[in-house]
């Protein structure tokens, strides 16, 4: 179950990045994704790399921890590199069978790999690593709140999100218990073919569903008893205002957007070969 540590693996530290408003962070993460994807010029990518390193420093997270977030996507990065490397654009320097390796392909591949790496690091830096999941749900609610005018039940979605996040540890514990209980009755989860494994999964999922639906019913009764009526009359414990931190991040985002949209096309093309 070690992969689950990925989930909401917020690293607690007291940094400017941690203290930032979650909806601004969410917005910044989305903007940074767009900016990184738009960065094509090597100089801009170099600048983004330095900026990302600075952000990591600012977040006070251990560098190795941040790098770990790349691991699940390592395959994709290598795949992208190989695809570009073998694409055969430009002058061929080596060839075998139907593949032609070119210098240009290798450079494009390396740049693409760098772009994906930056994308992943920036997102996990802003979202998973420095923002607790509940704060994230809060941020999503605030960002979606304009949709209220379209009669989109924003509050109920946010409530659903918070309850879902709250249920995750409970579910894990329950699943663990069920696995042990079924194993003691002779079920096995690691042996046999795919079909047998899927059957084993069903033998956990069904009782898991039944027990969690029972829990859901209890929770609904409890919410009704406490007069939960959705949005009406609900107040917030933390209604943090935006401070210089958020404004400076937003300013940085605007500058970066200008950089990739206005400055990038005017930069001289680098001729590699």
């Amino acid at each position: 179950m070690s992969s689950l540590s990925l989930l909401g693996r917020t690293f607690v530290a007291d940094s400017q990045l941690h203290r930032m408003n979650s909806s601004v962070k969410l917005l910044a993460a989305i903007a940074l994704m767009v900016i990184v994807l738009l960065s094509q010029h090597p100089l801009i990518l170099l600048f983004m790399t330095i900026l990302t390193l600075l952000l990591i420093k600012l977040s006070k997270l251990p560098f190795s921890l941040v790098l770990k977030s790349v691991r699940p996507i390592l395959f994709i990065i290598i795949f992208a590199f190989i695809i570009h490397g073998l694409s055969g654009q430009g002058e061929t320097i080596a060839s075998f069978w139907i593949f032609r390796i070119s210098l240009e392909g290798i450079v494009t591949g390396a740049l693409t790999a760098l772009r994906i790496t930056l994308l992943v690091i920036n997102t996990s830096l802003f979202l998973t690593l420095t923002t607790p999941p509940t704060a994230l749900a809060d941020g999503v609610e605030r960002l979606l709140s304009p949709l209220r005018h379209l009669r989109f039940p924003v509050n109920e979605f946010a409530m659903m999100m918070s309850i879902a996040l709250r249920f995750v540890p409970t579910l894990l514990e329950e699943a663990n218990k069920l696995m042990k209980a079924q194993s003691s009755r002779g079920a096995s989860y690691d042996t046999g073919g795919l079909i047998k494994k899927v059957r084993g999964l069903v033998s956990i999922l069904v009782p898991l569903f039944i027990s969690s639906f029972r829990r859901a019913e209890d929770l609904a009764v409890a919410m009704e008893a406490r007069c939960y009526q959705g949005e009406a009359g609900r107040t917030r414990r933390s209604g943090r205002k935006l401070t210089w931190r958020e404004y400076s991040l937003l300013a940085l985002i605007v500058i970066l957007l200008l950089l990739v949209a206005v400055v990038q096309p005017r930069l001289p093309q680098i001729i590699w070969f």
Partner: protein
Amino acid sequence: MARGNPKTERDRLLTLVQGAVLAAIYLVATFLTSAISFGMVQFRISEALAALAILFPGAPAGLFVGCLLANLLNPASLGIVDILGGSIATGVAALLTYRLGRSYRRSLQKYYQSREAADRPAMIARLIPLASPVIINALVVGIYLPFIIQGTEPTLPVVLLSMLSIFISQAIAVYALGLPLLLALERTPAAQQAVKHEE
């Protein structure tokens, strides 16, 4: 359990909380199998839950939230298109499944009252609504994934291949895992509760 029971506040809350529980299960199942849940060739076992949208009214919203959270908390996030696109595809597919499943729920309700095997919904009534998560995800996710992952414009065969791979993995998740789950859950009180208001 008479037909047309008025919906109470509790039923409304139950729909909300059931949706949340489904979202949580989706999230946990996705992360337990995270090695194969994300990426170009993905096999999301959690998509089996899409089959339950035929039965539970809270499922479409819950699956949307679950998928949104899973993609958002994915440490190797693929960007806004994947976060929103994937969850909207899952949510819309689930909504369609729920809409298409009306006759199924009605006959299930009849079956709960009579308890006669002849009244059990026909298998085809389950199979057709369950096709929507397979088709919609293959169309939406299958098309945008190569664009995000490869960056530059992928060729047509790559896009078609990616659609096919999502189609196959969704079909396995929904029909091989989701359907047995649905059949098992039909025997539970939660299912009876869910079809109570169907008319």
